[in-house]
């Protein structure tokens, strides 16, 4: 029976303590030891401290138990020794009991190490929770607050002795209190966590927005008993997002109040907002319009081009602008200017677009265009008429002159006054002829406004013109001084330049002062801002510039009635120069001379 005991049993007999009975379990402990041998000679794994005690126990007959003795490298035993007696009651030996407690001991050791680790972890957790900028707390299933981190005390200004469970609901803003209590209770009841925001009173009495999140500590299958959570101050974020929400709402309100189609689109060019007016105008909902619905509202033939243009704008980021007809809810198309621009900021690019109704302007423009076309046609007809009339009238005038010459040669008049009248008729006929020529020239010049523009060599062109005036120059003994060194070239129409210079020089010759030979200076130069100018200065009669009775630049207005002329010249010059975007300035002193300054303001230099 002793052999099958789950403990080691051995007897040590006699004062020499020789092995007697050894069961199998004890064999593991004492190893080689055989009955009859002394325990001190073959101690096996028995610890030496224990061996030293054995003789003493034998002597005084006491009992002894040694707990968790390390026997050998791998085992631990609870060893107990008690003496046994022979029939005479004398101590005959010792009974040795060994219970293997290696596993219990190892477990104890592990528990100890675990406790150490736990203590480390706990310390670390504590440091972390107490230094992190958020407050942590623990609530049990009944809703009692069992822990809050020191930050909570610092934030709320509550003493460490405060009754947490009682006090915390009082620190929550009255408007949030019921909601918070309800939500946390609901979380505890269902065994889930929670996540909500509320205002918590700070030590200075100011309520600050906090985010409270908690999760249950779960050990299945038991229901959770603790909820651990954190409180983060989200006041600034909350205020910012509040401001943003308000700003957004105000913008939306503004956009919805504008009687124009307003929309915004994502970076990809997909419309994500249409204002209220868009819905009213189109009669469609946001869903019906969709991210690109606007294109379907355009005139069928214009849709593809508009879509391509939009894709191009989205790809390049360039603004989109165009005039399109947009279908109204009643099927009427109205002209709109569609504009969209890209806004790029830290939240990425976005598109903002408007469609402005320009139907009225469009109609007005069309009416104006029609009227302009009619006027232009009428003007052209008038020109043609004048040209044709002046041209056609020249033939009868010539005939008249011929007939008159014939009459004068063949007829004879007795009355000398009649001879004077003949002369007057002759003069009148000549004047009629030259007026007709000038008229024809005027009309032709007006047609030449679209003359080709080229770079002209001033000295060559001026020389050509002066060559054409050679007879008059010779006749009057005039001196012409040409100075083109400062601006030798000019971009202008050749025919127009010829007309201008020809008219001004022949005027200067015509209105020369009777007391002195004419001196005409032609000077081409550049103004300080680089504009080409031609100055024509003479030493002739001069003229009244501001005299309303004798306007200088009007058709048929004549300054000097004693000099031959039709009054067409300066009008023509003025017309040509201003039609090319330039202007003509004149200064004059009666009896001393006149200076014309032509600011060409050529098309190329104005651009």
């Amino acid at each position, binding site marked *: 029976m002793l052999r099958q005991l789950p403990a080691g049993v051995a007897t040590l007999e006699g004062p020499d303590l020789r092995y007697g009975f050894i069961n199998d379990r004890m064999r593991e402990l004492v190893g080689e030891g055989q009955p009859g041998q002394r325990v001190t000679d073959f101690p096996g794994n028995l610890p030496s401290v224990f061996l030293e005690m054995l003789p003493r126990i034998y002597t005084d007959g006491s009992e002894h138990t040694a707990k968790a003795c390390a026997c050998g490298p791998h085992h631990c035993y609870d060893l107990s020794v008690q003496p046994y007696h022979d029939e005479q009651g004398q101590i005959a030996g010792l009974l040795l009991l060994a219970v293997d407690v290696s596993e219990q001991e190892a477990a104890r050791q592990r528990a100890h190490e675990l406790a150490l680790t736990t203590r480390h972890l706990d310390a670390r957790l504590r440091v972390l929770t107490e230094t992190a900028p958020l407050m942590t707390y623990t609530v049990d299933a009944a809703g009692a607050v069992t822990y809050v981190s020191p930050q909570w005390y610092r934030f709320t200004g509550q003493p460490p002795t405060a009754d947490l469970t009682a006090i915390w609901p009082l620190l929550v803003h009255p408007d949030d209190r019921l909601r918070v209590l309800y939500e946390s209770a609901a979380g505890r009841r269902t065994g889930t966590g929670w996540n909500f925001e509320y205002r918590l009173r700070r030590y200075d009495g100011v309520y600050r927005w906090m985010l409270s999140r908690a999760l249950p500590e779960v050990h299945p299958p038991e229901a959770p008993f603790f909820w651990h959570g954190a409180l983060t101050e989200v006041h600034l974020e909350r205020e910012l997002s509040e401001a943003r929400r308000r700003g957004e709402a105000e913008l939306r309100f503004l956009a919805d109040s504008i009687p124009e189609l307003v929309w915004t689109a*994502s*970076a*990809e*060019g*997909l419309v*994500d907002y249409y204002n209220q007016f868009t819905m009213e105008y189109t009669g469609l909902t946001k869903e019906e319009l*969709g*991210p*690109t*619905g*606007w*294109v*379907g509202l355009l005139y069928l033939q214009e*849709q*593809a081009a508009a*879509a391509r243009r*939009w*894709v191009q704008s*989205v*790809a*390049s980021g360039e603004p989109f602008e165009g005039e399109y007809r947009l279908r109204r809810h009643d099927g009427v198309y109205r002209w709109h200017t569609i504009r969209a621009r890209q806004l790029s900021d830290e*939240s*990425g*690019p976005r598109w903002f677009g408007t469609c402005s109704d320009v139907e009225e302007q469009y109609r007005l423009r069309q009416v104006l265009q029609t009227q302009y076309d009619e006027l232009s046609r009428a003007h052209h007809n008038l020109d043609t008429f004048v040209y044709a009339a002046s041209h056609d009238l020249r033939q009868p005038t010539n005939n008249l002159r011929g007939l008159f010459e014939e009459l004068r040669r063949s007829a004879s008049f007795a009355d000398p006054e009649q001879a004077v009248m003949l002369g007057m008729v002759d003069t009148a006929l000549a004047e009629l002829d030259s007026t007709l020529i000038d008229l024809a020239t005027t009309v032709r010049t007006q047609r030449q406004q679209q003359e080709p523009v080229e770079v002209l060599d001033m000295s060559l062109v001026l020389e050509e013109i002066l060559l054409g005036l050679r007879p008059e120059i010779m006749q009057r003994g005039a001196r012409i001084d040409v100075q083109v060194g400062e601006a030798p070239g000019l971009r202008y129409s050749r025919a127009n330049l010829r007309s201008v210079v020809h008219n001004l020089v022949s005027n200067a010759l015509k209105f020369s002062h009777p007391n002195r030979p004419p001196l005409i200076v032609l000077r081409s130069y550049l103004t300080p801002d680089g504009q080409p100018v031609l100055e024509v200065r003479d030493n002739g009669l001069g003229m009244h510039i501001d005299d309303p009775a004798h306007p200088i630049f009007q058709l048929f207005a004549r300054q000097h009635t004693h000099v031959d002329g039709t009054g067409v010249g300066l009008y023509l010059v003025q017309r040509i120069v201003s039609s090319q975007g330039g202007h003509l300035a004149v200064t004059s002193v009666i009896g001393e001379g006149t200076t014309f300054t032509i600011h060409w303001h050529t098309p190329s230099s104005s651009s």
Partner: protein
Amino acid sequence: MKHIVYLSRAVHALTDHDLQHLLDQSRHDNEQQGITGVLFYSHGNIAQLFEGEDEIADALFARIAQDGRHSHVRKLVDKPIAARSFSNWSMAFHPLVTEGFEALQGFLLPHHMPPAPDSLPIADALVVELVRLAVFGPDPSQPYHHALPLAP
């Protein structure tokens, strides 16, 4: 019959192998389910237009929206159509190694894609053009290094 257009972001960049696998699998599934359309992929950006019977298309989109392999799924268009505009289902992307792919059925190089079919309403064709631009960038022959801004 309806069609659905969406944009999304792949959670992990797809390799040539992933793409080919996706192409094979989707073609097989879509052919069985009568789904036609086109999918664009580039650098994690995904856009797809697909058309099919209402329930099948809705179920497919529900699966796509749940699929953990991509995120930020944004449905752009979901509306009934009278007839299909695509005769089959295909995929367009830039493989790292082009060779093997050119011969694959249903595969398109982004710059060899045919323009949106005329049967597609212009507003929807514009959506397709815009998502193609968003996925491949202004020049589809060049791999496009650009991430879509996340949906607001």
